[in-house]
């Protein structure tokens, strides 16, 4: 029997938490945004290097709970080479999945579908979506810090 805890903390999530991908400062970033989740103190800085409309490179720095770190790590891995429009579309799908638990988007979400278990833990939705909100700010080049509150 797979418990809700096991569904939340899937191997891939634990792995990305332990060894986050694309972690560190990005030299030559074209935009940057900061995200903060006051509930658990998750804090991250996201660096994006755009090539026209394409996300050429993306990295992050910061600390937080397993869900927020894994989410940032998997998001950056997923988005490299995607266009801004594609990124926005996948954010909408991701957000729908973690808030409502609908799995209809699982195929398009590919590896990001690992976060479907989050919907059973309403207080953790903000952890999963922090990096995405921060991405949105970076793509829109908002100056101020993004907060989940």
């Amino acid at each position: 029997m797979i418990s809700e805890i096991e569904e939340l903390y899937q191997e891939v999530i634990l792995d990305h938490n332990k060894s986050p991908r694309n972690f560190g400062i990005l030299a030559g970033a074209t935009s940057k945004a900061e995200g903060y989740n006051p509930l658990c103190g998750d804090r991250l800085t996201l660096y994006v290097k755009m090539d026209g409309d394409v996300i050429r490179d993306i990295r992050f720095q910061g600390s937080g709970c397993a869900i927020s770190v894994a989410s940032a790590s998997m998001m950056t891995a997923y988005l490299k080479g995607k266009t801004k429009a594609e990124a926005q579309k996948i954010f909408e799908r991701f957000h729908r999945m973690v808030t409502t638990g609908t799995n209809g988007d699982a195929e398009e979400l590919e590896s990001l579908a690992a976060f479907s278990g989050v919907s059973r833990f309403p207080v953790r939705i903000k952890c999963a979506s922090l990096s995405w909100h921060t991405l949105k700010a970076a793509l829109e080049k908002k100056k101020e810090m993004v907060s989940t509150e």
Partner: protein
Amino acid sequence: MAMATTSKDIAVSVSPHFDVGKIRQDFPALHQKVYGKPLVYLDNAATSQKPQAVIDTVARYYTIENSNIHRGVHYLSERATLAYEEAREKVRQFINAREAREIVFCRSTTEGINLVAQSHGRNFLKAGDEVLITAMEHHSNIVPWQILCEQTGAVLRVAPINDAGELMMEQFEKLLTEKTKLVAVAHISNALGTVNPVEEIIRLAHRRGIPVLIDGAQAAPHLKIDVQKLDADFYLFSGHKMFGPTGIGVLYAKSHLLEKMPPYQGGGDMILSVTFEKTVYNVIPHKFEAGTPNIAGTLGLRATIDYLDGIGMESIAAYEKELLEYGTEVLSAIPRLRLIGTAKEKVSILSFVIDGVHPHDVGTILDREGIAIRTGHHCAQPVMQRFGVPATVRASLAFYNTNEEVDTLAAGIKKVIEVFH
């Protein structure tokens, strides 16, 4: 005795006269399951559960006693007024204040501190004066002073704490200068459990003529408070952390200080006469109780004091000391777990971090085991910064908690470590 017999690994002695099984029967909220597991409620420093006697008192007030106070000449109003003032006298006895008029009912400890900052502070502090607090304060004993400092030009000074989470008394004393006009200190740290040497703090401040405010929110559920013995100038606590209702708090202040302080809020009940030309304020404590107060909460607070008196704060403290010793031993034995807050003098608050696991993840897994703990910064972000952690897990125990519940917590933590390693 229903407890402590299964604590196999570590021998503990249990207060012979303290029947925790019987006490637990008084708290209906403790007897429920969450996610199919028996609730293990270890979030008492956030808020405590309520005994049936308190719940019944509040329900009875709204069912048959409901009436406003200090107003009507009718039967119910007279009864309510009497009960409200009896509650004030009950609080006076509970903290051994000199007079009942030194007891001001407010919404919470937070509101009481804001009252003192805005009424006393704003009128008696000026630019360059200093307010001295400590590095272990709750935000509610930091932010009201920052607001006051912005308004008056006064300066906030902070006495440091050591690695165990104890106030560094030598540094504290050095920070007491002729500029210091007020000292505001927690009796017990909500994030660390440290019991501050408040009697000594007050003695040192008084030697220099400085009044002292004590935030007693975490002390009231654990210790016998004696404001005269402490010689505190201001002492505050909240009903809901001591098994009473939310929305009711107490500000104790020496009468000579209250007399000199202007009203905090204007409205009904705090006046003797009102004309458009001049209003005459009521006497203390009514001067500080504008508007219809939380009558049900006040009566509930009286009931909670009656309940605690029935057990005795000394018995509670003795039992909790054993609970803390047991909890400290059990948690310390878990590899990768680090206790944050290891003061020699502390109450049953166990703050900790687990190597490689964020507190929020610990909280989520424990929650599904039925264990309610708090994770985060506990409204004490400077304390987290002092210990270099973003957050901690905090298990805060009350006298209705048991060694078995500590064992359940330890088993839950082991599960967390299994998931993450």
